[in-house]
């Protein structure tokens, strides 16, 4: 160590805080610890798996969901079924070739692991029968008799049997151009190699098997058939496939950021240093997520992107600072130390603001949102170590290229026409116009966002895009069969053996009629539906008997075939209400109708409980979202405002920083209304994330602006100086953040695309708002002449 160097050290130590000394006097130890931690957490991160736990996506504490979970076993039969519709492109299903393909598909499906073979149903199942009333009573047989040989005669017989089977609209399409293979699934099944062991159904593998063994194989084998597949398992399989694509997005974001970063720094060494420390942050975050027991679900997948983007933006601030310092400091170490000293606190404040935004999300009672909040908070905490500490230490070793230092030296002195132009936002002429314009946008945004809806608005599976294969298949089945994909289940609870007594069934019948008379309801079915049909059947198909019987024995007999419409001990009977759609107003209307009915008819031994079914879950989710929406907004703004007040000790400063964010939130709501995106599990966090991250810009800009004002510069000149020193970094930060999340717009998963779009908008517009509106507000709210020469009260003051 030369004497010059040791003198510098001594000089540095004088002003250095304890933390700085601790870090920079033990640089090898810092690097070493980080490497060790990274190795451990990298191993942890490798173990993280996609998880699509159903329970984490629903509000578990909501009474609807509690009811559903309590009676989950009783509702088992309603659950996990995949339906494969085999369409004949030319002609109808009554052809030899079609029936042969259908038979092969039935057999192929039979052998896919996880299929409940005993309940597999298609026209080829012996259990699918026709019945007819004759003078002797019921007559019946298999729809496809043993004598079937594909001849025109046997196809004609098949057509008659199908008509008599009552399967039109269920197993056979209303137009006879397709039929369904109904595939009930087992959540877990015995291992064929080790019968004692249970294997849990792997939805992704199952979904791939359906694609390979059924869709691809048979569409190739018989060009006249088209296969449509729907069901929870297929949907989840497609979702997980969509998640895999997101990994690719991460690569794309990485490459774009790398190019941008190089363009910004002109230094390959620091570019790599920033990228690596940021990737270390991502690895730490993923590793910690796994260490605390979380998986990667479609929502928390956003977190690595956010952490990457936030990390890069802090890295850029650091590099910017070090480059500026390097032109004065004699070596990289000194430059790094000075930058650390200068930027650690504002960096901490910004990260704290992010974390505060994330933490507010914890009040929403939905697992995936809570995990997102915790994951993101862990992530930003990690950034403190990697980008605020590790990065300066790393740069102190590798240094910054001469070219970059030259450039930043030149930048510091030359005139910037672009920043000069932007600084006019603070001029007395432009500022009023800006403020009026902002007010107009605020008013317009508020007015338009009245159209904002709660919940999912598209047809079909809301998780996937409306034009995805799954949703096209779903639309095909809805169009051609008497069925709807939006089902709300009301659970009718009685004492044991109470579900099939007249006292229960008559009110259930009334409930069904009330439901069918509620706008948005297509139809309702329950054991009453089956009972009435059976009683009619017992009475020779005479419509005059299509009614419940007061006779207990008749009623009991009549529900014997209503499998799945009551539980094993006949204490719970679901009423399935099929809806036109799952829009919030439809769900509200139906839920209100059921609640009113329950209030009137609930009595000892008879309870009408909400709710199961996908529409029931959505109704519960909507209620939670609706009650949390305003709370989240108030809380996040309160937190951010308090942060600003603590930081700057100035009411005016707080307004200057927070008001542009408010405008962004309002415009964001209007954008959602315009794009037909509802407020839902996926978009609610965006509000908090957008505000939490968006406040960074304001903090960076205002802290510089304030220091120039105190130096006695007039507002517009002070703003010009602010832009010249941090404008580029702010602009770059905004771009980095936007790039990090905008790749999501291309996700196959609809809500990820919605999140990507909304976050991109909020992050870009927050940056724009900080650059444009903050100085205009400052023109009205801040008196530069009073600030000149005074000591700052802000915590950045030295």
């Amino acid at each position, binding site marked *: 160590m030369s004497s010059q160097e040791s003198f510098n050290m001594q000089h540095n130590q004088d002003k250095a805080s304890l933390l700085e000394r601790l870090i920079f006097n033990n640089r090898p130890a810092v690097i070493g610890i980080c490497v060790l931690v990274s190795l451990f957490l990298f191993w942890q991160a490798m173990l993280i798996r996609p998880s699509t736990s159903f329970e984490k996506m629903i509000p578990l504490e909501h009474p609807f969901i509690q009811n559903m979970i309590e009676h989950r076993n009783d509702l088992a039969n309603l659950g996990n079924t995949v339906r494969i519709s085999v369409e004949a492109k030319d002609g109808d299903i009554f052809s030899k070739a079609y029936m042969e393909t259908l038979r092969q598909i039935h057999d192929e499906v039979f052998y896919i692991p996880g299929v409940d073979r005993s309940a597999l149903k298609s026209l080829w199942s012996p259990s699918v029968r026709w019945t007819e009333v004759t003078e*002797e009573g*019921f007559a019946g047989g298999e729809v496809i008799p043993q004598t079937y040989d594909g001849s025109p005669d046997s196809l004609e017989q098949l057509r008659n049997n199908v008509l008599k089977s009552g399967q039109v609209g269920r197993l056979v399409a209303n137009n006879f151009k397709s039929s369904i293979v109904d595939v009930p699934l087992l959540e877990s099944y015995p291992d064929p190699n080790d019968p004692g062991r249970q294997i849990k159904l792997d939805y992704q593998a199952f979904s791939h098997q359906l694609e390979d063994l059924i869709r691809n194989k048979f569409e190739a084998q018989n060009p006249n058939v088209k296969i449509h597949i729907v069901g929870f398992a297929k949907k989840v399989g497609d979702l997980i496939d969509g998640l895999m694509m997101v990994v690719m997005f991460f690569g794309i974001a990485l490459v774009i950021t790398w190019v941008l970063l190089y363009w910004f720094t002109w230094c390959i060494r620091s570019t790599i240093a920033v990228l690596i420390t940021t990737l270390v942050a991502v690895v730490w975050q993923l590793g910690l997520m796994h260490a605390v027991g979380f998986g990667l679900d479609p929502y928390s997948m956003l977190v690595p992107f956010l952490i990457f983007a936030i990390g890069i933006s802090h890295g850029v601030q650091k590099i910017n600072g070090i480059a500026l310092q390097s032109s004065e400091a004699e070596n990289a170490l000194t430059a790094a130390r000075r930058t650390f000293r200068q930027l650690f606190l504002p960096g901490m404040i910004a990260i704290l603001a992010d974390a505060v935004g994330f933490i507010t999300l914890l009040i929403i009672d939905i697992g995936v949102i809570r995990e997102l909040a915790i994951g993101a908070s862990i992530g930003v905490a990690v950034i403190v170590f990697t980008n605020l500490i590790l990065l300066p230490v790393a740069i102190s070793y590798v240094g910054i290229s001469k070219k970059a230092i030259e450039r930043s030296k030149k930048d510091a002195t030359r005139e910037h026409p672009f920043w000069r132009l932007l600084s006019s936002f603070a001029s007395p002429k432009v500022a009023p116009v800006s403020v009026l314009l902002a007010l107009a946008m605020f008013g317009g945004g508020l007015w338009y966002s009245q159209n904002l809806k709660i919940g999912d608005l598209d047809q079909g599976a809301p998780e996937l895009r409306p034009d995805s294969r799954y949703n096209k298949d779903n639309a095909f089945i809805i169009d051609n069969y008497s069925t709807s994909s939006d089902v709300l289940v009301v659970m009718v609870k009685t004492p044991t053996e109470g579900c099939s007594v007249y006292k229960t069934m008559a009110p259930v019948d009334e409930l069904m009629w009330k439901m069918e008379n509620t706008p948005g309801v297509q139809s309702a079915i329950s054991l009453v539906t089956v009972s009435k049909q059976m009683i009619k059947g017992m009475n020779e*198909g*005479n419509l005059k008997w299509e009614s419940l019987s007061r006779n207990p*024995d008749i009623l009991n007999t009549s529900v014997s075939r209503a499998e799945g419409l009551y539980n094993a001990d006949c204490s719970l009977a679901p009423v399935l209400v099929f809806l036109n759609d799952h829009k919030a107003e439809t769900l509200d209307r139906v839920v209100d109708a059921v609640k009113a009915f329950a209030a009137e008819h609930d009595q000892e031994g008879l309870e009408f409980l909400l709710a199961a079914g996908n529409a029931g879950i959505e109704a519960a989710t909507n209620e939670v979202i609706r009650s949390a929406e305003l709370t989240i907004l108030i809380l996040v703004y309160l937190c951010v405002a308090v942060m600003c007040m603590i930081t700057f000790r100035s009411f005016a400063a707080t307004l200057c920083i927070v008001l542009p964010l408010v405008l962004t939130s309002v415009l964001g709501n209007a954008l959602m209304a315009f794009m037909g995106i509802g407020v839902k599990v996926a978009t609610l966090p965006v509000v908090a994330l957008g505000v939490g991250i968006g406040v960074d810009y304001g903090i960076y800009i205002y802290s510089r602006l304030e220091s120039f004002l105190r130096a006695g510069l007039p507002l517009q000149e002070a703003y010009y100086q602010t832009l010249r020193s941090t404008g580029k970094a702010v602009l770059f930060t905004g771009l980095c953040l936007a790039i990090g999340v905008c790749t999501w717009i291309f996700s196959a998963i609809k809500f990820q695309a919605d999140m990507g779009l909304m976050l991109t908008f909020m992050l870009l517009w927050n940056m724009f708002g900080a650059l444009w509106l903050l100085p205009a507000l400052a023109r009205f709210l801040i008196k530069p002449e009073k600030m000149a020469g005074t000591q700052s009260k802000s915590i950045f003051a030295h």
Partner: protein
Amino acid sequence: MNVFTASVLLSLGLGLFAATAGAADDGPTPQTVYSQTSNKASHSLLIDIAKAGPRLVAVGERGHILFSDDQGQSWTQARVPSRQLLTAVYFADAKHGWAVGHDAQILASSDGGATWSKQFEDPSRESPLLDVWFQDTRHGLAVGAYGSLFETTDGGAHWQDVAERLDNPDQYHLNGIAAVKGAGLFIVGEQGSMFRSRDAGQTWEHLDGPYEGSLFGAIGTARADTLLVYGLRGNLYRSSDFGSTWQAIALQGERGALEFGLASATLLEDGSLVLVGNGGSVLRSTDDGQSFSVFNRPDRIALSGVSGQADGQLILVGQGGARLATATGAARAQP
């Protein structure tokens, strides 16, 4: 007899016992429950349709009674003190009509079907009434399940159980009652049972019919002593001597013999007959029921009632409510 019928009969015994026991103490009368007004009522299950002067009146599930003053183009829901499935309606004149149904309910209207009052009910019987006929506004008869037969001679102020007038030891369901021109009354029921009365229902004669299966209804044609009875699986018989002898009427559908049950019939003003039934079956005869043309609607909807307009067009009721149809039974566009 099949298993179902056996269990039904067994439980009936218990039911009757319970009824007697219950009748002893008169509990508080439950508050009258009216049918719910619904704009879906005209699309709900409707069982029977009748003319009240120029007005059409249809009855069906959940106590729905609807009337139309424009030949079925639009329907208005009547105020009805019932939520049970109503199975038959009959108007003695343009004002006075009766409807019967489950819980052995008998409802009456004296204003052409706009408002109704309950004249009789007995839920404890656990058996529905299935058809009703009135001679004038005073004297009427209602038939139903397990051999039920009720009579009134005072316009329904009192209804009397007169089931013992029939020789029906097995208590077969009585599905339909009809008047035969110049002859008397005719009742058909389960297992091909049939009864005739020449004295307006005071005494009944049991007949051995031509058919073992259930008969769902009977209708007198335009000619004296002539009637048709119809039932399961397209079985249709004609008698021109008030049921003493029968001719089977063969019914040929598009794909062979008609196999659907026939539920109801009507005699049009021009003397032609229309029958309807399951599988969207609409049958028409212009030779007093000696032969029928057969049409099966493509919707295969189960039909259970029919009324004809002066121009020969039809109004059908059944699953899915009331429908306008052409003279053949094909769908007619709603204007």
